[in-house]
C-alpha cells in the first residue's frame, strides 16, 4: 500500500479516538444528572438531631433554673406546647406544690430514639434523658415549620418497669400518625378513653387503655382515700380532660407511642352541715388560706405517654404531673 493511504488510516484512527473522547460525553468526563431527593427517610441526620436535642434540652435546663423575666424568655425560647404550659404552671406555683419531674435534670447527654420521617412539617425528635437517680425521661422535641427551631414540647418520666417497643432506625425515621388515625385507636380517642377511666367517683370503663400501671393506680387510690378522709363533711369529684393535639409516633411493630396532656380537676365541696376544712400545708400556701368553708378546686396537668401495641390495650409508660391552679373559699 502507498504511503498516503497509511497516513490516512492513522489519521482516521486518531480522529475516531478524538471523537470518542470528546463526544461520548458525561461518562468520560464524570458529569451525570443530580440524584433525586429521597423523601421517605429522616429529614435530618442523626448527628444533627443529637446536636439539636443537646441544645434544646440544655436551654430547657437553663429555663428551669432561671428566675423572673429571664426565665420567661428562656422558657419561650426552649419550650412549646405542653412542656411550656407545664413549665409555666410549675414556675407560677409555689415550689412546694409542684411534683413535676424536671425533664432535663440529667447526668448523661440525651439519646435520640427517633426522628419523624419525611420532609414535611411538623417534625419531631424523640430523645431520652437519664436523671441523676437513674430514672429515664422521654422528651419530645417539635418543630412546626422550616423557620422555627425545635423546642421541647412534652416531657415525662418513665414508670418503673415500663418499656417501649422498638422504633425505626433514626436514619430511617418514624412516621407521625394523624390524630384521627383509626389504627388501632385514634390517639385523641385513646386519650379521652384514658381520661374517662380515671374519673372519680364514676370512671368510664374502657378496653382501649389499661389502668393498672403505678400512676393510674395511684391516682384512683388517692382519690378514693381523699374522699374517704373527707367523710360526710365534703364530697370529692375528679375529672380528667384530654387536651387537643396529641402527638403519635408509629412504632416499628405497627403500634403507636402517643404523647398527650390531661388536665385533672379535683373539686371538693363542703356538705351543707360541714363546718370547715383544714387543707394540707402545700394547699394552704397555694390558696393562701388556712381553712376552707365552702369549696376547693385543684387543677393539675398530667403529661402522659401511652404505648399502643398493634393488638390489645394501650399502657401508660411515662407520666408527669404539675399542679397549676388552686382555689379555695
Amino acid at each position, binding site marked *: 500500500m502507498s*504511503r*498516503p*493511504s497509511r*497516513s*490516512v488510516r*492513522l*489519521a*482516521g484512527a*486518531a*480522529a475516531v*479516538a*478524538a471523537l470518542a*473522547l*470528546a463526544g461520548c460525553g458525561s461518562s*468520560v*468526563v*464524570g*458529569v*451525570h*444528572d*443530580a*440524584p*433525586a*431527593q429521597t*423523601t421517605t427517610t429522616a*429529614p*435530618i*441526620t442523626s448527628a*444533627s438531631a443529637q446536636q*439539636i436535642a443537646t441544645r434544646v434540652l440544655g436551654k430547657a435546663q437553663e429555663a428551669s433554673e432561671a428566675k423572673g423575666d429571664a426565665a420567661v424568655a428562656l422558657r419561650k425560647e426552649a419550650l412549646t406546647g405542653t412542656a411550656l404550659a407545664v413549665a409555666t404552671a410549675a414556675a407560677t406555683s409555689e415550689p412546694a406544690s409542684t411534683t413535676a419531674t424536671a425533664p432535663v435534670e440529667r447526668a448523661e447527654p440525651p439519646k435520640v430514639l427517633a426522628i419523624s420521617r419525611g*420532609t414535611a*412539617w411538623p417534625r419531631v425528635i424523640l430523645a431520652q434523658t437519664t436523671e441523676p437517680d437513674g430514672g429515664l425521661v422521654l422528651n419530645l422535641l417539635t*418543630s412546626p*415549620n*422550616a*423557620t*422555627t*427551631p*425545635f423546642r421541647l414540647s412534652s416531657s415525662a418520666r418513665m414508670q418503673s418497669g415500663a418499656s417501649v417497643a422498638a422504633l425505626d432506625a433514626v436514619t430511617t425515621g418514624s412516621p407521625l400518625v394523624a390524630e384521627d388515625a383509626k389504627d388501632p385507636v385514634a390517639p385523641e380517642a385513646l386519650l379521652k378513653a384514658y381520661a374517662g377511666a380515671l374519673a372519680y367517683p364514676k370512671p368510664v370503663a374502657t378496653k382501649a387503655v389499661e389502668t393498672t400501671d403505678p400512676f393510674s393506680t395511684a391516682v384512683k387510690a388517692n382519690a378514693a382515700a381523699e374522699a374517704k378522709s373527707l367523710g360526710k363533711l365534703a364530697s370529692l369529684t375528679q375529672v380528667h380532660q384530654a387536651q387537643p393535639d396529641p402527638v403519635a409516633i408509629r412504632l416499628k411493630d405497627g403500634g403507636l407511642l402517643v404523647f398527650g396532656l390531661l388536665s385533672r380537676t379535683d373539686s371538693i365541696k363542703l356538705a351543707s352541715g360541714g363546718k370547715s376544712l383544714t387543707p394540707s400545708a402545700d394547699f394552704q400556701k397555694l390558696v393562701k388560706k388556712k381553712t376552707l368553708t365552702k369549696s376547693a378546686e385543684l387543677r393539675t396537668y398530667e403529661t402522659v405517654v401511652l404505648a399502643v401495641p398493634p393488638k390489645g390495650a394501650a399502657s401508660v409508660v411515662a407520666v408527669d404531673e404539675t399542679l397549676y391552679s388552686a382555689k379555695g373559699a
Partner: protein
Amino acid sequence: MSDLAKRASVLSRRTLPPVLTVLGLALLIVGSWFTLNLGSSGSATFEATPNTRGVVVLTPDVLNRVNDDVTVTGRAKGDGQVWVGRTTPSDADAVVGKTTRVTVDGAHVRDWSLSTRASGTGDAPATLAAADVWRQSVSGNGQVRLTVSQENAPEALVVAAPGGAVDSVTLTVERKTWFWQALLIALIGLIATIVGIVGLTGLARRRRADEKKNDGATTDTEAGSTSGSKPGSKPGSKPGTTPDSTTSTEVSA
C-alpha cells in the same frame, strides 16, 4: 478491487486530509483551551455575581453532578458578614420561602459562569441561620467557603449576607482527570492536524505530478502526429500515449 472500492478509496484519499485537518485543529484548540483553563490540578471554577440582598440558593444541578467534592465560596459586598448553610433541596426551598432569591441551577463552560435566575420578594429571613434544617453552616466576614462532598447528595446550599448583600458566589470542582483528558484531546488534535496536513501536502504533490504528466503527454501526442510513437510508451496505458493510427497501420501491413 472493485470499481466501487476504487472510487471510495480515491474519494477518501481526497476528502479525509482536509476533514482531518479541520477536525484536528478544532480538537487542538478546544483541548488546549481546556488544558490552560483547568490547569494541572484540573479544577473548573465557575462564578456568579448576583449582588443581591436576598439569598443565593445553589441547587443539586450544580452541586451534585460530579462524584468529586465541590467547594463553594460566598462573598459579601463590602467585607460584610456572609453565611453559608448546607441542607436538603426541599428544606432549602422551605426555609427560604418566597423571599428574594437567586437560584443557581447551571454552569456555562464557555465563560466559566453560573447560570442564575431571580425570584421572590423581600429580604432574607432574619431567622435563617437559626432554623434546624442545616446539616452544616459556616459564617464570617468578607467571604466563607464550604465544601460539599457527594455522600449526602442531593443537597442545596444557601448563601446569605445578613444585613448586607451577597456579592458573588464561586463554585470550584477539582478533578485531575480533566486536565489529562484535555491534554489528550489537544494531543490527538495535534496529531490529526499534522497527519491531515501531510495528507493535504501529498494530495497537492500528486496533483502537481499529474498535471505535469498531463502537460508532458499533451506535448508527446502533438509530437507523435508528426514523427511517430514515443519511445518506451505502452499502448493504451495513459491518455495521450495511445499510438496513432498511422503507426498502427504500418505494423499490421
